[in-house]
């Protein structure tokens, strides 16, 4: 069984086709990267999984459920997709403390208070921010804020975790540590991840599978080794160099 399936997905902005006939399957528990230059459609693909954008053609499936199928007028709103997401700009809410930020998805689901507390404490341990629950986001570093965002994305035990260039706002040294930590947490929790990046080194270091995209299309899909050793054409060879 696969966790996420794209079948012939297309997306237009006006007459401009930004995602063109994209199909892929992501196996359960794997980390799948969408790699490509800016404007290649990778973030749009990620946002279509989340339900933040609607595809115009094709179907998107999360687990067993078809979440978007425009021909049959089927569209599941983002809040019902059970997908966690980590944004490039962290998107940690400045008016809530760390506990309230992370507890938000559980409060929305009306979970009992003591259980919420347990879950938040547990997830804070996992992202290595124990005891930070009373702090406010503006007292945290960028890396710490990103960990809060990661915790918030994971706390509701989502079906999938979506990461949109999560490291691009961090400095180089922190980036490598954070990259390793994300991979560690992902395998520890065993969650399916979609990871969007324009940095080939990042993609190679973290992924089980990589899809290289260009101009709205997937050019090549494979393991990091496949792509490194057998680039399918000049574009891929040039981009990963």
């Amino acid at each position, binding site marked *: 069984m696969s966790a996420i399936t794209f079948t012939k997905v297309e997306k237009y902005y006006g007459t401009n086709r930004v995602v063109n006939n994209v199909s892929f399957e992501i196996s359960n528990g794997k980390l799948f990267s969408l790699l490509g230059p800016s404007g290649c459609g990778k973030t749009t693909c990620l946002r279509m999984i989340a339900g*933040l954008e609607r595809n115009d053609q094709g179907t998107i499936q999360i687990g067993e459920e078809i979440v978007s199928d425009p021909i049959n007028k089927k569209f599941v709103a983002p*809040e019902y997709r059970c*997908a966690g*997401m980590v944004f490039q*700009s962290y998107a940690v809410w*400045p*008016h809530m403390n760390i506990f309230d930020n992370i507890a*938000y998805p559980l409060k929305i689901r009306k979970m009992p208070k003591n259980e919420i507390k347990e879950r938040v404490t547990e997830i804070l341990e996992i992202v290595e921010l124990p005891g930070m629950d009373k702090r406010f986001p503006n007292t945290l570093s960028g890396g710490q804020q990103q960990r809060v965002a990661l915790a*918030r994305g994971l706390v509701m035990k989502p079906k999938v975790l979506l990461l949109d260039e999560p490291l691009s706002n961090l400095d180089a040294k922190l980036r490598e540590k954070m990259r390793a930590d994300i991979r560690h947490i992902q395998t520890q929790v065993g969650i399916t991840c979609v990871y969007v990046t324009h940095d080939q080194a990042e993609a190679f270091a973290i992924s089980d599978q990589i899809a290289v995209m260009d101009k709205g299309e997937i050019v090549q899909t494979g393991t990091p080794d496949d792509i490194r050793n057998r680039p399918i054409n000049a574009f891929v060879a040039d981009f990963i160099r």
Partner: protein
Amino acid sequence: MQILILGISLLFLFVLCLYPFGTLIGKIIFGSENISLMDLFTNSSTLTAVLNTLIISLGTAFLSTIIALLLSWPLTRTDLPGKKILRSLFCLPYAIPPFIGAIAWIYLANPQTGIINKLLGYSVLNIYSYTGLIWAMSGFFYTYILLSLLSALDRMDSSLEEAARLSGAGPLKVFFHISLPLVFPSFLSGILLVILASAASFGIPALIGNPARIYMITTKIFTLQKMGTMNGIYSGATLSLLLLGIAIIVLVINAVLLKKKFQVISGKTARPSLISLGNYKWPLFIIICMMLFFLLFLPLLAIAISAFSKLQGDISLSNFTIDNFIRIFSEVEETPRALLNSLKLGFVAASVATILGLFLSYLEQKTKIKGRSLISIIVAFPYATPGTVIALALIITFSSNIMGIPISLYNTLTLIGLAYIAKYLNFAVRTTGDGLQQIHDCLHEAARISGADWWTSIKTIWIPILTPSLVASFFLVFMPTFSELTMTILLTGPGLETLGTLLFQLQEYSDISGGGAAVLALFIVLVIAIINYTVKLISKGKYGL
């Protein structure tokens, strides 16, 4: 040359924006004029005016908040049809003088002759009441909250809301849990501005409140000042300190609030995904259009009907006439004079404010003079100060002698013009300042190296680049001054009619049953709408509503 021009600008700033208020406060509190502060403030009619002002401004703030809140979500976050046009129309009352709304609602809801009451067959609505006053004011002042909400919500990083969607919250929950708390400081500051604006407003309280015997501080001051004696002026001025007090309290709270603003503006301009309303799209659209009808179109329609009616309150076709226009524009002897005065005042005030604004924002941004950052604070002060206070401060400062020179400016167009410049200089400084910000120092340096002196560089490099901001600044000052009433009514005298005071006079006593005020109101709305959309076009949507 440079020093001379900038020095004169600073002198102007001081004489217009600081000196009169110092004089006002000095003369009232430390002066020897025989006004007993205690007598005035313990007088029961004063206390009633203060109480009325509080009730009406808080009531207006409450109703305005509800209107603005209802509009803010559909106008920013959804795929509501015609959103762009709706936004512009809902914000338009910001530019229309409130006394026009007063006239409109008197035509609609006068207990005897109101159009709505006549249509319904019996007297349901009575505009001459607290509710009437609050309703008429809210129809204008909700725009203060709406504008601050719209701009704050537009600038918000959309991923903050998307993160909440993915956490499982529906669109409305996201709005109340995330968006609204994040823009709360701007929201609250909008509400405070409404309280201040309604406490300081004159047109609606005078036209609706006076016949209802509901007096506010501004209308009470007007009565005192119109007694024509120095004693009356000083009593009015003393009372105006109360308004100044309200203004200062509001501004201090506002300054504290703005410091608490969250930094939620994203660096990259993400394409925010709009919420699809689905089946609710058209029902919501109809509700919003009905709100627009009651807030904007119904009042404008009432004015149009009244302007074209022989007999007020009758809406049959046989009642149609253009006599009102003929009477106002060719028979009423004050009209040409008022029109000319308003054009003259608007033109001079807008030009002087724009030029002065340019030099002042140059001083603030491009020089290293100590205390330069005070300039924008100083010009913001008269803008936030109630018009009534400005008018009285100028009367007291410039009536007997000017800083030792024995010339009186009281009862001159000059004094009215100075009041306009003082009040709206803020617009000019901000707009020209935005323009200057676009010019990097190196452009100026390149011109200087090429052999241009300071003035030549200003003329050949700066002014051409700045033209759009200068034009916008001119019209942004021209619009409110063209039909100003609150200050003008206190500063006017025989032969000094303006469109605002003439309209007031027609409505209050000289043309009560004639629809003449409606003719002028229609004219003013038309001019303002044209200017507004011209400014919007020239500035590519940056200024204008």
